[in-house]
């Protein structure tokens, strides 16, 4: 086993050269180069984190604008609906007044017609009465030979007509 057989003659050279080369490795590579490599990594990580943060901020801003747009949109829609409703109400009111006017006109015509009919009926009734009175006087004169005065005859006719 050379490790033990050569120990006495080689240990000092082994230790010396190991210290030299491991020392170079540590001070040049470990102390000099590794921190720079890690710094690059840290820089990249920082850059990525910053980019992600920027992207997130942009997305938040976009969300905000979309929200604002939505609010505005809702307002516009509500305003439009209000205008439509108002127009509808106005149209309804207008048509109602028109209808009311037409109704009153019709009612008036109707009542006029009714009055005329009532007058005509009353006139007709009076005429019938007169005719009836004259007929009654004639009948009495012919049948009984009596002369009945006009007031008496009309009174009797009125009674008879009232009784039906």
């Amino acid at each position, binding site marked *: 086993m050379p*490790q033990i057989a050569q120990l006495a003659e080689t240990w000092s050279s082994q230790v010396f*050269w190991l210290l030299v*080369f491991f020392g170079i490795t*540590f001070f040049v590579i470990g102390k000099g180069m590794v921190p720079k*490599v890690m710094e690059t*990594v840290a820089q990249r990580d920082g850059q990525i984190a910053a980019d992600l943060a920027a992207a997130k901020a942009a997305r938040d801003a976009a969300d905000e604008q979309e929200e604002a747009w939505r609010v505005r949109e809702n307002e516009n829609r509500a305003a439009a609906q209000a205008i439509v409703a108002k127009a509808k109400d106005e149209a309804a009111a207008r048509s109602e007044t028109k209808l009311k006017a037409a109704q009153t006109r019709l009612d008036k015509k109707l009542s006029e017609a009714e009055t005329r009919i009532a007058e005509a009926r009353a006139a007709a009734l009076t005429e019938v009465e007169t005719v009836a009175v004259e007929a009654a006087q004639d009948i009495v004169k012919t049948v009984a030979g009596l002369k009945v005065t006009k007031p008496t005859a009309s009174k009797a006719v009125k009674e008879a007509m009232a009784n039906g």
Partner: protein
Amino acid sequence: MAAEQAKVDPMYQFTIEPLAGSSGWELAGYNIAFTNSALWMLITTVVLFLFVLGGMKRELVPGRWQMMVESFTGFIDNMLEANIGKAGRKYVPYVFSLFMFILFANLLGLLPLGIFGLHPFTFTSHFTVTGVLAIISFSIVLLVGFWKHGLHFFSLFVPHGTPLPMVPVIAPIEFISFMVRPFSLGLRLFVAMMAGHVLLEVLSSFVIDGTNAGATFGLMVGLPSFILMIGICALELLVAGIQAYVFALLTSLYINDAENLH
């Protein structure tokens, strides 16, 4: 036959040889020969440097290479954050160096360079190396622990909710388990790497010797061994990663003890 068998020595791959006449180099009386082991440490460092350099383009949208490097740093970063918390970040350079150094050493040691007549050397299969790495990790734990908590760091040896009469019994056990950590840390990597390489070498000796012994042996022993070797190679690649991960993970767990007590 004896000479042929000696050709495949499973232990030879761990031999350290000074290169290019550097065997006499000394520093303050200690030998510091530039060996094949040191050469592979150099290669590991250079390859690791080039690997991380490829990830330094610092582009906002990473290419494949940069992505790969970043996933390694991210992996270590996550591991430390999961085990230690926010305070774990300052240990990323150390744990990253440790993990990648061991990982690359393990993987480079597995390269099939023997085809080109070169001999890859896995220096993580030497406990002189893994031991030093373990001691560095352990020292960091001790330094951080005493720096942050002072003598209060010793409360680490008394787990929460220990009944008072049990403290004299529990504390020594905790202390021993604490002191064993650097050994288990260093030995685990060393043993895993060495066992794998020995196993591959032994199997290859079966393939070579079996084939040399004739067609029957070649089919009965050599072929199954060769197929098994392919599987073991895949397993070794896995082990190379796992052992590096375990070393880094345990280091971070130990640092967590020092950072947060418990």
